[in-house]
């Protein structure tokens, strides 16, 4: 496998950086190498931000930013109004959107799950915002990026509230394979 590159779009405070961390940790539990990094700029709560994850079978030596991702994860669909989330996405690459409604991009494999709905139904709300970074791991497991076991393991290592795992399981079930 060559390095698999993921870009996560979210807004400051939504947990995009933690999602990147959870994903990288799960990949490491799968026996792979992974790095996760936020793009640090003038970060403000609510402003669109990106974070990056690289997964490979061998140690990762690349520190420069991901320009041609294999997968785009959009945790907040509203950023698509202000940011070209498809920028640089490899031909035939995959887009995952946290959304209740279907959205297609020609030339790409698009899938979606209502992570916000799942989070609200599990009452996973912190400071008025639904938690998205743990349910998204279920969707990523369904896409085959990480194993289900490693997804659950990394969530449990970072969060003691078991509802996070339940939300990931729900997202796993909802995403059509």
């Amino acid at each position, binding site marked *: 496998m060559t390095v698999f590159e993921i870009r996560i779009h979210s807004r400051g405070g939504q947990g995009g950086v933690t999602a*990147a*961390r959870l994903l*990288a*940790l799960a990949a*490491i*539990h799968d026996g792979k*190498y*992974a*790095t*996760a*990094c*936020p793009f*640090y700029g003038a970060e403000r709560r609510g402003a669109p931000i990106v974070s990056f994850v690289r997964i490979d079978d061998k140690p*990762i*030596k*690349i*520190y*420069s*930013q991901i*320009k041609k991702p294999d997968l785009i994860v959009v945790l907040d669909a509203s950023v698509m109004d202000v940011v070209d989330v498809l920028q640089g996405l490899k031909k035939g690459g995959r887009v995952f959107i946290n959304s209740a409604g279907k959205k297609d991009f020609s030339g790409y494999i698009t899938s979606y799950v209502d992570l916000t709905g799942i989070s609200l139904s599990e009452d996973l709300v912190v400071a008025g915002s639904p938690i998205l970074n743990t349910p998204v791991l279920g969707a990523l497991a369904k896409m085959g990026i990480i194993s289900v076991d490693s997804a659950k393991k990394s969530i449990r290592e970072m969060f003691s509230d078991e509802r996070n795992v339940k939300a990931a399981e729900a997202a796993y079930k909802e995403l059509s394979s």
Partner: protein
Amino acid sequence: MKKIATGNKAVAEAVKQVQPTVVAAYPITPQTEIVEQIAEFVSTGELKSRYIPVESEHSAMAACIGASITGIRTFTATSSHGLLYMHEMTNWAAGARLPIVMANVNRSIGPGWNIWAEHTDALQERDTGWLQVYVSTVQEAYDATLMAFRIAEHNDVLLPVMVNLDGFSLSHIMQPLDTVELGDFIPPMHLPHAIDPKQPAGYGGLTGPDQHFKFRWDIERSMRDSVKVIEETEKDFATRFGRKYGFTDDYQCDDADVVVVSMGTLGKEAEVAIDILRKEGIRAGSMRLRWLRPFPKLNLNGKDIVVIDRDYSFGFGGILATSIRAQQKIDVYSVIAGLGGQEVTYEDIAEFIRKRRLGEEFWFGVNDRV
């Protein structure tokens, strides 16, 4: 257990294991998460240090000096402007022969205001008598911090050590981290000239023109002796924990016609460039300089040398390039790249090597006359 950590957390984890008696730090920007994490370890009792939050980096180093002279282990961390604000005291720490360990997150100096990676901050401390090591992975940040204490406190060294990690590109990136069981890897600290109330002595007294140069020479003698101590420490670390380090991290250098020299994370990115060039039939190698002080004797005989400086000495040149040119007595291709976090990819590095012009200087991304 397999862990994931940022460069900042990895340094804090190492400090927790080494258990310095005093950590003194300025807790506000440009401070790093290293000290935030250490403060948390102290509050939970995992780290039994006395944590002294002070009002400036100058005071942070002064507090470390005051603590260290009593013979106890000390640590601090800073970054960019914080390091420069310490400058008077960093000189004092080395001159007073105190084995203080400091982590510095390499970030640019303003203005213009910029918070990203650059090595100019630590390189402005180059001549203070501190040992300086530059790391390139989260694992190495952890390992180098552990080793720094043993090297600094060795009786043949007794000089402070600065562990440098690139701002954001390493301080904030999350990578796998294996922690070790330290055992007796770091012996208890013994400072021969520690303050002892039973044997009163004068400290910081006047050293006249007939004495001062002897103390300066003594720093240089220890700096030279530190080479052996670094080698021994890194060798013992490899034996105990299985990870090998040296003065440089060489990748495909042996048969190389051209070698790119750099420091920090750019040195890892360069290895990817080497893989690309090798496929094109170009015999290239990468030498990542780990120890800047003491500066190692590099073996680059007969090779073209491309040096990437993430720093600059205005009016003269890239600090690495000019150092290597002086030591090797040959022309190098000097590339100035990555200043203030400027994006430099492995493709860019491959291009530097392909289009090298020995004897010239190239400012990456600048179109003006250079």
